[in-house]
């Protein structure tokens, strides 16, 4: 029953809340969409914490994304034991990097008076779910063999079924493994991942929805015209307004 709740219902609740909440926050509360950087108040401790955490997270995210998009390629890569080990160890390394970074960030927030002034409860919620997520991810790698293969062969089909609105909960619920800890870690990892998605609109997580990717192809300079100078200058209409046509009156 719990499995159906966590892997059949929670994904849809989380995705719905994330979508509706994020769109609402982006369109109606644009002023509150920010990464809320606190580097201005404390920069030195932030350097190690933020770099270790973010780069580790970015790599892990891309890894999961590849496993989701092209599982067959991951399985093919893992065909050779050496390559499998390279993949597993680098993923483990990035997770350790994230964990160290997160620990440093938590320490920074807990011990720096200036940072406490800009902290709120949701910041600590964020820390908690991230800790659960990273530790359970590390647990999968430690207790189970092999996470990357398993993701490509079981998790990706499960995610497809979720996105096809026909969740195949049994894929997760009937996981059989000799190691009970591995099973617990996997289920925790999946559930807390959906939890993270669900709380995006209520936390500083929103900032990765607005990652500035379009900067890469944007022109450097940006000029915005609030009105059309030429149109105003050259208009011969008494009422050039566009909402109702009074031209011929």
């Amino acid at each position, binding site marked *: 029953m719990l499995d159906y709740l966590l892997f059949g219902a929670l994904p849809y609740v989380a995705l719905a809340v994330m979508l509706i909440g994020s769109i609402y926050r982006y369109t109606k509360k*644009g*002023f509150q*969409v*920010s*990464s*809320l*950087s*606190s*580097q*201005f*108040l*404390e*920069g030195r401790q*932030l*350097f190690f914490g*933020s*770099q270790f*955490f*973010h*780069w580790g997270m970015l790599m892990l995210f891309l890894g999961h994304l590849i496993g989701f998009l092209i599982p067959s390629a991951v399985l093919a890569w893992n065909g050779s034991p050496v390559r499998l080990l390279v993949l597993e160890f680098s993923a483990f390394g990035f997770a350790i990097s994230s964990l160290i970074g997160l620990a440093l960030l938590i320490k920074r927030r807990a011990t720096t*008076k*200036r940072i*406490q*002034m*800009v902290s709120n409860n949701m910041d600590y919620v964020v820390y908690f779910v991230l800790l659960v997520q990273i530790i359970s991810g590390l647990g999968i790698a430690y207790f189970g063999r092999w996470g990357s293969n398993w993701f490509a062969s079981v998790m990706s089909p499960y995610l497809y079924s979720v996105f096809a609105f026909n969740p195949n909960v049994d894929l997760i619920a009937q996981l059989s493994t000799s190691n009970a800890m591995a099973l617990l870690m996997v289920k925790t990892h999946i559930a807390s991942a959906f939890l993270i998605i669900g709380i995006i609109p209520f936390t500083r997580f929103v*900032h990765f929805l*607005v990652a*500035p990717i*379009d*900067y*890469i192809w*944007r022109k*450097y*300079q*940006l*000029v*915005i*015209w*609030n*009105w*059309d*100078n*030429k*149109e*105003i*200058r*050259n208009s011969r209409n008494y*009422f*050039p*307004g*566009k*909402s*109702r046509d*009074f031209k011929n009156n």
Partner: protein
Amino acid sequence: MNIRSQISMVFHLDKCIGCHTCSVACKNIWTDRKGAEYMWWNNVETKPGTGYPTKWEDQEIYQGGWVKNGDTVSLKGAGKLKGLKNIFHNPNMPVLDDYYEPWAYRYQDLFDAPEGNDQPIGRAVSLITGEPMEIQAGPNWDDDLSGTPDYARQDVNFKHLSQAEQEAMFQLEKMTFHYLPRICNHCLNPACVGSCPSGALYKRGEDGVVLINQERCRAWRMCVTACPYKKSYYNWNTGKSEKCVLCYPRLESAQAPACMHSCVGRIRYLGVMLYDADQIQQVASCDETQLVDRHLDIYLDPNDPAVIKAAKANGIADSTIKAAQNSPVYKFVKEWKIALPLHPEFRTLPNLFYVPPLLPAMASVSADGTYDTVSEHLLAGVEKLRVPIRYLSSLFTAGNDQKVIDVFKRLHAVRVSRRDTTVKDVTEKQLNTVMNEAGIDVHTANAIFRLTSLATFEERFVIPAAHREEAIEMLENTGDFKGSTGFGFKEKPARGM
């Protein structure tokens, strides 16, 4: 030719008395809020000095501005590769302690203290943490040459001066300082706009004011690094960057910005300049020796019929063209050539120009020990100046001494000409020599004198209204909104809520 209009400014440094009225006017209107306490969109520095934030001119520390890169420019410490690489931690960003920690005093303690043997005190408390603090620095804690090792002697511009020249600036008989009021330059090639990963910063097409869209800013903090003048500030409370808005709500209704309106010394001038937007990249990426000339050349003569025709074709309103023709900035910068941009080597093409301070430069001491203000050879020997020309050229001309000397010659000629008019103790030969060397005639000298010393409010600030009343008709029929709510509601007030 792609003509646009730009609101530009001139600050006359000889007239600045360093009273900070501009700073306070700005602070009261714009930055007296939580998260913005440390911000001074307008600040006044003492030169030589380290400024605010400390050593902002040193781009080896802060990596601001553009650098020449072949036939184009690239951002020194930000941009697509560097900016996104540093997005998780920006190594070149100034932090709070590079500005100062804002504070207030516990005034109430003075009233509430129990009776005792000691005087009650109101302790300083941090406006960030609310805890008692030791005040380390303030936004204008320059030392006016009192000689502490912390401020004047750390001036970044000293790197172009020999040790002997630096020492000379601190000798009691020769010491000199001037004030340097600073606001956002609303540059033609703004580094802050180029550096913003989320595209929140933009230059307004109609009048060239550079603004930050508060709804798009995501606190990537790149503008703080990229602005070489450090005039983009991070609000630590809201998680959004903020900067000088040139009081655009006032400008749109043809009022002077608060800092300019309140200026006690009447050092500030504001007006329209027409420029050719197609040339921006070329000019920004030209050789450093040509930077000032090319920068000033980008502004066009508003009385030239060809320019007027092109301006009209680009939709620039008649009132704007008329304002450009009467612009005091055009007179100072282009006609009289006595105003220079601050640190042109940052390549942002700033629109704030400074008349460099002549007064501390006057050095010729006559036999009786007084300064000889009518000497025709005032500037005969650069080595005699109280302030080394090299110091001023480091500020205003990217190291071109001759440009500063040319300006000084004209400023000096104005003084000699006025002395001839009022005191009448200048020989005709002296007058002619000075005027010829400066390359101006008495008529021009009088015009400079008039706009410098006697100008009325309307002559100092020539601002066309923004014509929003016409602009709004482009979007909606104003008749439809007759009788509806004016200011005050972001959403329409509806019954039942």
